[in-house]
């Protein structure tokens, strides 16, 4: 097999055929699907969930994951936090001419492994090759299809006193990727949290009641996602700074650069709002999973009005948290 991707890999001829057969189909395994222009899948008759996401991360390999793992986990998580059981994925690749085929194989293997772990089947795909310089290595789009389960799900019926839970430490992905770019002049022993959460979230949906909403705080971080929930449902949400789990290393890098962990991306965390009665049980179940071992209750809904997020500092002072305005830049001193 060739060493690098060439434009011919995307022209629909013999090289395209081999690429699909030897790399994608051999890894994703759904041989039937490739004989037709569309994959035929069997769905339950319940309501289904559909989501799509594009992945353009730099670097494509980072501590704790790769663009491939992320492309599966990210879409699986979007389905899982919606309360749907992820079933099928499609994937579209845009690859830059000259991209090493060995790297493509690694990416595809990561996708296959993550799909297996989360129990989804990759049923359809597409590959386009663009001229050198027209893309940065590889971009991946995945579309996910999930099935809502009868009787279980998120009620969206919020009440004062509902607890806000985060499934683990925040900001790990953001710091792992920033340090992996090698631009910080810092080596921080932080792995990305990139992981599929569907098995863990299915467990809390099945074994507890009273879950109001689940969201994954990816770009924009914990604060931005909570601001969105507060505004969308007109809730005042209070969170306590000392209750929010942050790794010491993440805290350290943020202090040096002037970043705020509340706004750093996560790729394997969920925010769960649950009735006060069930909150401890939810945390107990989350902590049984490796992805949820640092789960913590970080705050509560204090009123069903105003649509705002408040942070209580260690001194007991409260301040408003808003969406991130623009990109975070490192500061002068």
């Amino acid at each position: 097999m060739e060493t690098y991707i060439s434009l011919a890999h995307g022209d629909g001829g013999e090289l395209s055929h081999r690429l699909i057969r030897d790399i994608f189909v051999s890894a994703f395994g759904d041989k039937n699907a490739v004989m037709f222009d569309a994959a035929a899948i069997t769905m339950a008759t319940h309501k289904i969930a559909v989501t799509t996401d594009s992945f353009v991360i730099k670097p494509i390999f980072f501590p704790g994951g790769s663009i491939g793992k992320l492309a599966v986990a990210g879409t699986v998580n979007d389905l899982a936090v919606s309360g749907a059981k992820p079933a099928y994925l499609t994937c579209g690749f845009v690859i830059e001419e000259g991209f090493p085929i060995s790297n493509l194989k690694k990416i595809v293997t990561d996708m296959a492994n993550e799909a297996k772990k989360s129990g989804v089947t990759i049923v359809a795909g597409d590959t386009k090759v663009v001229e050198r310089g027209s893309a940065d290595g590889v971009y991946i789009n995945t579309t996910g299809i999930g099935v809502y389960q009868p009787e279980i799900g998120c009620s969206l019926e919020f009440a004062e006193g509902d607890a806000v839970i985060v499934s683990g430490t925040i900001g790990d992905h953001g710091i792992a990727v920033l340090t992996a770019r090698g631009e910080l002049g810092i080596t921080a022993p932080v792995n990305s949290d990139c992981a599929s959460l569907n098995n863990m979230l299915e467990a809390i949906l099945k074994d507890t009641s009273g879950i109001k909403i689940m969201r994954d705080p990816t770009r924009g971080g914990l604060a931005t996602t909570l601001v969105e929930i507060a505004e969308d449902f007109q809730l005042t949400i209070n969170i306590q700074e000392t209750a929010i789990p942050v790794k010491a290393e993440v805290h350290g890098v943020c202090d040096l650069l002037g970043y705020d962990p509340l706004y750093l991306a996560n790729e394997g965390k969920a925010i769960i709002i649950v009735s006060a009665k069930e909150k401890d049980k939810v945390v107990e179940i989350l902590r049984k999973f490796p992805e949820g071992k640092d789960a913590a209750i970080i705050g509560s809904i204090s009123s069903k009005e105003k649509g705002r997020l408040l942070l209580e500092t260690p001194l007991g002072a409260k301040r408003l948290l808003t969406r991130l305005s623009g990109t975070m830049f490192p500061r002068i001193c």
Partner: protein
Amino acid sequence: MSMLEILKQSSNPEICKPLVDAVIQKAVEFRQKFGRKPAFMEVCGSHTMALARTGVKQSLKDYVQLISGPGCPVCVTDQRSIDAMIALAEGDNRIICTFGDMMRVPGSNRTLLDSKIAGKDIRVLYSPVDAVKVAKDNPDKEVIFLGVGFETTIPILTLMVGEAEKLRLDNFSIWMTTKLVEPVLRYLLEAGEVQLDGFLLPGHVSIVLGEDAYQYLVTEYNISGVITGFEPAELLSGIYKLIDLAINGQASILNNHPAVVRKAGNQVIHQWLEKYLTECDEAWRGMGVIPRSGLDLKPEYDKYNAKKRFTVEVGEPKKTKCRCGEVIRGLISPNECPLFGKACHPMNPIGPCMVSAEGSCAAYYQYMRESF
């Protein structure tokens, strides 16, 4: 105990909450004696941010007046200098390297971010010395670093020149627009526009300068200063000590950050500064030119001095109703500016204080525009 565990203790609510009460009690004592709130200026932009982010300022607002001073490097940079740096980026065959804070600072016509979007090669560096590497990797381009900053940042600039010398680079230079703390404190004290009972002195800058460098505050102006760190417990104990000194009427400089700040500062850095730099007049936003208030490269290092290598033409800065100049001097609080939170907000900053990560207006907007 690890360094991180020690740091964690300084934001431990069990330590900090009683400290808030102790500061308030001390402030009440001051008020009983003098019939007003004690007023202190935090000189450092990182202090301004930390006081607001941690809630120290909000917790003490009824008892202690904390006034933000001229400590945000981007904010104190004169508009004409900002415009010049943005204009510099317009030249061809150049790579401009900068700290992140500069990217969104409004120029009279555009920001550096606008120029970057329009296709200019402008790079935000996390580690400034990387600019030298950029120059080495791009021998056919002129690489210019925007040297904005106080004593904390200036040593890094000299380090860059040292690196460029070692590599014998001909395509690397720094656009120097640095500022020094002492001349601006003297300016404020001599102007006498703000009544102050003391200064919360910057922890970072003091690592370079040392405790002894502030004695002029006591001997010439009879005013106290406490060198203070950035964690809640450190901020609170610094303020406590300032009130205590003010009550006793005994001007003094205290080092409340002794783990990192020495009496004579960092002597190695002083040698570097002496080797490469010389004092120069600098223009400050809202204050005009203050004599010998900055450092420039010595003439023998002209080849690394972007101001000697490139000429940029800028017109009169655009006039706005922005009152950043008065905010920096501690004359008004950010919310007293008519633009604050209306025309001027972080998504549409009119002045630098709203955009910098250390700006008073940004701190006020982000953390204090409502109280709960």
